[in-house]
């Protein structure tokens, strides 16, 4: 079973510490949502897992090995990252972009297995009608679905997503969250995503990590973490939380 472990990890830029002495373990398959206000270090936290950022102190281990001692190629066999934009400079079709997700595991040529994985991801994400379109000509929401599809075809043990639903309408947000949760359980993989929507998180996350004040403020189930007190303390907004079948529904109280 795959295990990601933060051990006394600190990260900062120059003298400014963003995350301080983080100890965290990801082991159980399922959907983990990382929440917190803007600028607290949610994306920083997940980027330390796949070596995109280098901790100032401590280590992040993947299956017991410090990720900074692993090559990028070795790491890509286990981890996939879904950014929230495509980054394409030149014209690339949706099909080509998704197919590139096979790069870490594919050989020199495209195999039937690669095509099958890509076709499956295209169908799952509802991208059939866009396959030959240039990614840069798609809407932000469509691009996010392409990026998720690219991450899926990498067939990772840990899938990390940076705000994958931020540009999606509510239907697709719910669809993507539902899919990621069932995908995580069906494949037995860990899906870690940075997100902002408290209710969507509460509805689908198996585990919620609330980042605040340079550390992990709360870590547990949605019902344990998304309490009115925690939300008020971390986001500085008043909230009322109702429970239905154990799932919290959060109502943010507007201040006039």
């Amino acid at each position, binding site marked *: 079973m795959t295990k990601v472990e933060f051990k006394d990890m600190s990260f900062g830029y120059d003298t400014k510490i963003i995350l301080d002495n983080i100890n965290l373990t990801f082991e159980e398959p399922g959907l983990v949502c990382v929440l917190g206000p803007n600028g607290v270090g949610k994306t920083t936290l997940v980027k330390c897992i796949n070596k995109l950022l280098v901790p100032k102190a401590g280590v992040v281990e993947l299956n017991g090995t410090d990720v900074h001692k692993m090559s990028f190629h070795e790491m890509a066999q286990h981890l*996939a990252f879904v950014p929230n934009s495509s980054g394409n400079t*030149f*014209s690339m*079709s949706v099909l080509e972009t998704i197919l*590139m997700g096979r790069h870490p595991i594919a050989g020199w040529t495209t195999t039937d297995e690669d095509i099958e994985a890509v076709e499956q991801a295209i169908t799952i994400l509802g991208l059939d009608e866009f396959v030959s379109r240039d990614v840069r000509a798609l809407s932000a929401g469509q691009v996010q679905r392409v990026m998720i599809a690219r991450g899926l075809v990498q067939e990772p043990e840990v899938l990390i997503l940076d705000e994958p639903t931020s540009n999606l309408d509510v239907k697709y947000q719910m669809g993507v969250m539902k899919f990621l949760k069932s995908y995580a359980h069906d494949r037995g993989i860990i899906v870690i995503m940075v997100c902002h929507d408290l209710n969507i998180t509460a509805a689908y996350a198996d585990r919620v990590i609330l980042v605040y004040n340079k550390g992990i403020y709360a870590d547990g189930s949605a019902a344990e973490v998304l309490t009115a007190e925690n939300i008020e303390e971390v986001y500085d907004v008043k909230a009322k939380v109702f429970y239905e079948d154990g799932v919290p529904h959060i109502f943010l109280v507007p201040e006039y």
Partner: protein
Amino acid sequence: MIGTYPIEPEDVWNQLMIAIFGGDRESTIYHVVIELRMPRILGAIVCGFGLAICGTAMQSMLKNPLADPYTMGISSGAGFGAALAILLGIELIAGGGVVVNAFIFAIVPAAVIMFLSRFRQATPTMMILCGTALMYLFNAITQLFMLVADPESMSAVYTWMVGSVNGITYSNLVIMVVVTVLGSIYVQIMAGQLNVMGLGDESAKTMGVDVERRRLIVMLVVTLVAAAVVSFTGIIGFVGLVAPHIVRTILGSDNRYLIPASGIFGAVLLMASDVAARTIVAPQMLPVGVVTACLGGPLFMYLILRNSREAWT
């Protein structure tokens, strides 16, 4: 064979057979075909191929459609080196002349960029801006030298700065071919990684590419190819920039196909330009760089306008 001395294709074939298997090697036609035109044609092919490959690799790895050996300062560095030798008689290696000077100074901008990349964590944008700054710097110093040059030397520098495949010899060709072929093979092997690098550094790293290391090595390889080519031909701009773009509008951006196709297109473009340069105002010759821009420019403009929504947004 098209030129000021018209030769039938059959005669060209015969002279090639003589060159390979032996025969009358003293005839005028043999001299024109094998000694004058063949190295020039082969030089244009190798030069066009090499510059186009360099442009394609640079554009992909730096994620910048304006990257090519010229905008990265490589050609300007070579021009500066050549000007040092021609105008001031300074040779970095005794007896090396213009070629060695040009080769060494072509590598200088790339070395600065690679240093910044390795030790200052320069982004692709910073790298291309540094290249452009060095291009202006080398051009400015070369212009300064030309201000105080005598007319004959100035003419020689000018001829070098607009590029020509005229003076290429078979011994030059051997070096150009070896470096270009080896460089092209390496770049082709890296095509898949260049595709991934085009998605951005973060995406590329999470897809298994050691971006900084790969960029350094590809940069070194394409610099050597560009330096080896321009040292013998002078500055031939435009091919490295435009060939990848033109092919991209037809074949798409997958470097596995784009790299060889750009190379072939660059070779054809430069060869056609050279033929035009030799024949348009015969017996005079136009600088091949001018003809390349005149042939490729309108085609490029047409493709930009036709495909603006698909290829460039």
